[in-house]
């Protein structure tokens, strides 16, 4: 089977002068978890054009960020891509570190990598359940939620919040995890490894799923690069890019992992790449756990020594609970002040490249924030990917792109 056999149907000669219909999918639709409207111009069931109308979830997060202090900004950023909320915290923390020249202790770097990979696992598990629903299989979503639950409990144990835990803070992480966290995580990993295999077999050994996704929604390499695809979507189209390997942050430079690549760029490849990524994530989590168990990473005291700005040190130490907090007259923690300047940081999120550009004017909060998210780009790939396929394929393609509208609309 070659590329030439991809099912793209030309516009036919139509003696009956039948009209095409415009089917509107969304903003409220069982398949679209978050609101976006797709106007599908279809000839019967054959899709001719897809027009994406977005903005139903626009919250003005960039503007809000420039009106908040740094801590509030982190909370908002973690709510753009909420399935892996720690990415937002990481982005803002590393931007602050870049602005104020902080150095993060080695142990905290490993803890950051650990938490980021747990977030990726959580997000991919959610995607896996959603994928089953899109193709009419009801059971995978129960499996996915079952596997995700202990993961969320672990994150809860770490930071007191299941989704948006502010565990990653400027200068490191907020505190050393309890010993039970390591034990439970180690107990969870082998179980998850076994189950991931069976879940992938459920789909990949299923002729129905393979027929429905093979050579469906083919995203070609050139088109992917031109249109800013990133993450698993780009990697499934054989674009060899991964920020964790190309521009290592946190402790990724010291972890060994493979970057899984697809060949055809179809829905099946995107499915396979994500499952391989989940395996790699679990390998990385194990490596992090091994490194954290060793003694050479230093003490558990994660924040402190190298802070230049006294107000920053006071604020962070106040949050970390090491020193008695300096409180103002209203009884609140003093907001952190960051030196003026510009910073650009990026991270390989579960859906693709998340980048943050911050301008600080030395005040209590950022002067301007701009977020680059992958979902916006992937959402607008839909028109290209769906043309010539059937209406039922649209939902498979949509699920395989793993679009988060909240992050696209912001």
């Amino acid at each position, binding site marked *: *089977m*070659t*590329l030439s056999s991809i099912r*793209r149907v*030309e*516009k036919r000669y*139509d003696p009956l*002068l*039948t*009209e*095409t*219909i415009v*089917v509107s999918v969304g903003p409220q*639709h*069982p*398949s679209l978890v978050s609101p976006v409207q797709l106007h599908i*111009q279809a*000839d*019967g*069931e054959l899709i*001719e*054009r897809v027009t994406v109308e977005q903005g139903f979830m626009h919250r003005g997060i960039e503007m809000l960020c420039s009106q908040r202090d740094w801590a509030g900004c982190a909370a908002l950023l973690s709510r753009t891509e909420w399935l892996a909320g720690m990415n937002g915290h990481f982005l803002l923390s590393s931007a602050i570190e870049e602005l104020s020249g902080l150095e993060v202790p080695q142990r905290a770097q490993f803890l950051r990598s650990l938490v980021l990979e747990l977030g990726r696992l959580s997000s991919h598990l959610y995607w896996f359940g959603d994928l*089953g*629903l*899109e*193709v*009419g*299989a*009801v*059971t995978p979503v129960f499996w996915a939620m079952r596997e995700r639950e202990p993961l969320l409990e672990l994150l809860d144990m770490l930071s007191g919040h299941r989704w948006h835990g502010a565990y990653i803070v400027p200068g490191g992480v907020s505190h050393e995890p309890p010993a039970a966290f390591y034990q439970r995580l180690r107990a969870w990993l082998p179980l998850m490894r076994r189950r991931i295999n069976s879940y992938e077999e459920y*789909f990949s050994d*299923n*002729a*129905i*799923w*393979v*027929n*429905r996704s*093979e050579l469906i929604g083919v995203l*070609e*390499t*050139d*088109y992917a690069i031109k249109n800013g695809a990133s993450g698993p979507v780009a990697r499934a189209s*054989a674009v060899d890019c991964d920020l964790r390997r190309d521009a290592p942050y946190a402790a990724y430079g010291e972890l060994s992992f493979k970057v899984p690549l697809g*060949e*055809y760029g179809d829905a099946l490849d995107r499915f396979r790449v994500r499952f391989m990524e989940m395996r790699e994530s679990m390998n990385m989590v194990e490596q992090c756990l091994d490194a954290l168990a060793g003694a050479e990473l230093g003490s558990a005291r994660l924040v402190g020594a190298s802070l230049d700005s006294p107000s920053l040190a006071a604020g962070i130490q106040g949050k970390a609970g090491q020193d008695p907090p300096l409180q103002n007259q209203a009884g609140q923690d003093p907001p952190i002040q960051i030196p003026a300047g510009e910073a650009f940081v990026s991270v390989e999120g579960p859906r693709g490249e998340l980048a943050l550009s911050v301008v600080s004017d030395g005040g209590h909060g950022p002067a301007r924030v701009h977020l680059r998210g992958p979902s916006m780009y992937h959402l607008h790939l839909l028109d290209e990917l769906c*043309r*010539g396929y*059937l*209406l*039922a*394929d*649209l*939902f498979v393609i949509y699920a395989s792109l793993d679009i988060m509208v909240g992050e696209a609309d912001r």
Partner: protein
Amino acid sequence: MLLLLQTYQMNDSVNIWQAVRAWINGLELGGYRVSGPWSNGLMLVTALLFIFLLELLLTLGIQVWERRTLARMQSRWGPQLHGNITPQTFRRVLTPILILLAIPAVLYGIEYWSSQELDQTRTSFLFAAIGVLGLAAMIVRGLALNKAGKQASKDDPVFIGFGVVLVTMIGAYLVMFGAGPDKQLNINLDALTGINSFVPLLASLCSILAFLIYIVYTLGWAWRQGLIDAVKIFFKEDVVPLNADRFLFLFAPVMVYLPALLSWIVLPFGVMVVAGHYTYMVVQDLNVGILLIIADFALFLVAVIMSGYGSNNKYALIGAMREAAMLLTYEIPMLMALLCVALFAGSLNLTTIVEAQSTTWAVLPLLPAFIIYLVVALAECNRPPFDLAEASNELMGGYLVEYSGIRFALFYVAEYANVFTVSALMAVCFFGGWKGPMFLGLDGLWLSSIFWMLLKTYAIMFFFIWARATMPRIRIDQIMFFSWKFLLPISVLVLCVTSLGVAYRHPWFMANRIPYMTIDPITHQPLTSYQTLTTLEALKSLTLNEKVFFWCYNFGLAAIAIFILALAWRILFGKKTLPRERRAVTWQPQQEAELKLNSGGGGQ
């Protein structure tokens, strides 16, 4: 009803109630014997009773089986609010009703106990009294717990009463149908129509209520969800969309519901002994039962197209289009598979088909036809993986999308009724219908035969629900491909193989039930009679042509079997490879001109 009027008019001296009793009991009345399939009142009443019970189960029970269905119904009908039938209303409304029911029961019971005329009545009264007492104990205990604001546990001693009450249901029914401890071998038809039937009916009513109370007080109020949904949906607003074709839109639910029930007329549920004769429990023992059921499926298609066209909705239209294409496609292999059964049994009559499977279930000789029917049955009642007409993720319910309230429920119940029909037909055609060990003897023949029939049917229904939880959905063009290019040729082949086997009296295809053609000496008409032989005897009785055919056929079948086994071996134990070949990554730029050509179209 016509028959009833006829009876009434022919005998002026007979009053209407006598006529009704004659109609139900099939008695001789004023020189006119009410004959025909309706003459057996017990059969009729039992069939109606079971249809009612099945209907109840389908509308209420199955919702609880499938949590997703439940969630979907909730999203359709609104969230379940607290306070529809609270324990308080339960107490206020149902308790007086129960007391009112219990008083006449006690009175009648005392009367018959003292007269001691009928042992049956006395026995059934005993059961009823125990049931009422157990129920009263449970109500008292439940009220006390309710007042204390507690929830009863399953270990609460008062709920032993539940077991007692459950026994009364079985006991009362056994007595009513003449299987009591003191009885002779006949069935008291008066028990159904006379006042005697009141006591066992009351006992069974009590036991049902006791069952509900037990569930409510032990499992909490979760179980009421299905019941309340069924009640609540009657009171929901019936929305007709603007610009809809009103007649088609409003009439489609009726059209979809009627054929689903119509099929049950010809389904045989069991066999019973009435006045020393075996009688089938079937409402109308049609000679063309299979044809009727297939015609009903075609009516279902008409209704779906009506709803899809009448809704004035694109989703509904697309769903109806898919449904039409799919049902037209799958009727043919289904017919082929059922034709194999008809050839095997020598009849289209469902009771004859069951009787033909006295020695062997037809699933063994007709295994390929069974597999075809299994696949087609899933498609026939829109169950996953063939549920793309009402694909909830894509089309939001397809042709159901504009329906609300009781019209939506009619579609939904019709779907499950279709599932039941298809499963029962499968049980009848391939699994021997009601055939099974009759553990209750001749008296309880009706009960044990119904038991086996329902057991088989629900086992198959379980498979349907299992498939829903297992399979992803197939795309419409893949379904068409699968049916026209794979199922249809295979089913024609299977039909050829089976018909040749039957024509040449191959013992395997006849399940050792060898037909003989004789000529009736009086009427000179051909007669077919069957004789069950062992395989060796059957072979001896074949003619030379048939023997030659037998051996040739066996070699051919062995070759096919070896091929299929090898295929299965390869699939199961062979080296697993991806279904597509690996390829070097050579990407070519998109042809812009072609893209423009594609995108520039579209009817303006």
